[in-house]
């Protein structure tokens, strides 16, 4: 995990008038999650999941709102959010394609799968297409090694995929996105 340092004192946080943490989310955190734990801090992970699920990524303003709602320091929320790989602190494409690059998948042809996605979309690993539809990442083991090579497209797992199937899946998802269905 990389430590990225920036002069934080000069950093401007982009803000918008409307809160990211909606009333429904606040109610859910207060009623469902806070009673589960001894500390409110334990709600940070679920709260971040909510934000990411809704917006696709986690803006800084949203982290501040979570901090205020849970009565913890914003630094605590930032700290946690930056540690976990699944949280996107910058916007990503509508559909996230995660290719497993761990051992079982690599020996069963993962490289061809990554290459097929790269070629199809014209992007490199950890880039997003210009139209904002797809982001490609490589992850460690997805826990589907028996179905290697495995990829996650959005939240859906595909096992034993071939380069041709990958192209088909991308075409299908693109049609869904164009038809207005989020992925």
């Amino acid at each position, binding site marked *: 995990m990389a430590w990225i340092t920036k002069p934080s004192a000069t950093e401007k946080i982009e803000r918008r008038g409307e809160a990211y943490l909606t009333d429904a989310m606040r109610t859910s955190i207060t009623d469902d999650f806070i009673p589960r734990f001894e*500390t409110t801090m334990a709600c940070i992970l679920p709260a971040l999941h909510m934000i990411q699920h809704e917006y696709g990524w986690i803006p800084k303003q949203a982290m501040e709102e979570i901090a205020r709602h849970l009565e913890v320091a914003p630094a605590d929320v930032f700290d946690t959010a930056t540690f976990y790989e699944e949280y996107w602190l910058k916007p990503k494409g509508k559909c996230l394609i995660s290719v497993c690059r761990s051992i079982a998948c690599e020996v069963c042809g993962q490289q061809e799968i990554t290459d097929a996605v790269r070629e199809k979309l014209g992007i490199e690993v950890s880039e997003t297409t210009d139209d904002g539809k797809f982001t490609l990442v490589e992850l460690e083991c997805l826990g589907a090694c028996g179905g290697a090579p495995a990829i996650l497209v959005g939240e859906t797992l595909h096992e034993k995929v071939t380069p041709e199937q990958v192209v088909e899946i991308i075409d299908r998802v693109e049609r869904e996105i164009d038809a207005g269905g989020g992925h």
Partner: protein
Amino acid sequence: MPKAKYENSLDRHYLLKNIPTPPFGDVKARHIVSYDEYVGNGGYQGLRKTLTMTPNEIIGEVKQSSLRGRGGAGFPAGVKWSFLPPIKLADGTEVGDEHAGKDVPVEGRYLAVNADESEPGTFKDRLLMECDPHALLEGIAICCYACRLSKAYIFIRGEYHHQAHVLEKALKEAYEQGIFGDKGIIGSGENTAGPRFRVDCYVHRGAGAYICGEETGLLEAIEGKRGWPRTKPPFPAIKGLFGKPTIINNVETLCHIPDIINHGAAWFCELGVESSVGGPPSFGTKLMGVSGHVERPGVYECELGIPLRTLVDEFCGGMRNGKKFKGAIAGGVSMGVLGPDQFDAELDFDIGRKYNVLGLGTACPTVFDEDTDMVAVCRNISRFFKHESCGQCTPCREGSGWLYQLLCKIESGDGRTKDLDLALEIATSMGTMPGTTICGLADGNNWATRTIMSKYREEFEARVKPTYVPVAMTVGASAKG
């Protein structure tokens, strides 16, 4: 009678009884087992039976079964449970068996279920949660009742979206049916003389960090912090989640509990094998998730002690395309590899002592055929550890990075013989000295690299250029270094 050596006596599945899998069923017939179906097949009988037993009887039964943790370390579950401190009443008396049916307020004692399953090569807990979620919930309920735990958190890795939804749905059913929540364990203690015992259970989703599978990293993650493992002691049984007594068990470990209660410890001890090297026994069945170059990869339930060759030939349809066996990761990459001459290794908890690997781990072998490039395998694994090191301990954080760089260099053909020795030295100094790192990740890195490099030494040597060693000084000429 416990067996000394593996002989297959399984005539049906236990862990997978509701999840069809060859040889006792067809994978295509898999579906999510609902509450009604689970109960129809004898589900929650174990829980009902535990309600007629005292907590110490239950823990005693689990201890007697010698059930060892299925999450990697193989620690006996019953022994772990007995490490919990006793509950003290307001007047200072300790709660014992005589309080079995009485109303004892239990606050702040937790169960953390390890469903983080991120060790490359491991995919067995996924199956249990995906198809038969109530088996896990029953195991959780029994464990909470036996250890008097008030809340259970199922910490499931972030990538298991579908499995988390299945569990949430099953939990809802379980709450409605009076397993968890204010209806008490199986509705108001109708089976016991005493009042209800309340347990709450929640699904808690992780967010993509392997290190949260380490038990104390997992606790930190539930607490909402970054998943940095804690120094032990204190052990979680004394000071765990929110500083309170906590039990951490793997999904598969807990799924075994209902059957042990139902059929008794003696039944469990007839499955699996005794230790052949005088260690603790390896009883029971185990899910083995086989991946890599075999004809039919997948999760199979076998008795412990099954030789890898038998597993591959009889369950997985042999090596893919009839190729030759070259090696296998023993059980998750942290355990190291079994070499070409170790195809007959028995998969039980003795494996570490007998075959120069770290241990059985998760018992999910990744099999390699003769065409596999072991240098690439080694590079892949070291990239995994570099990526997943949490960064707390210097040997692990720095060492894993150096090692990966070196292995990339060796793989690309730019390495020299001395790089092999350097790589081995880095690998060996990571984690072997007790106390230099906080958790076992560095150890895993060490074992993986060391076993691959020593068992396939020629392959590495063929990749590198020789290091020029100045043998003698010739006057007037310069020696190359």
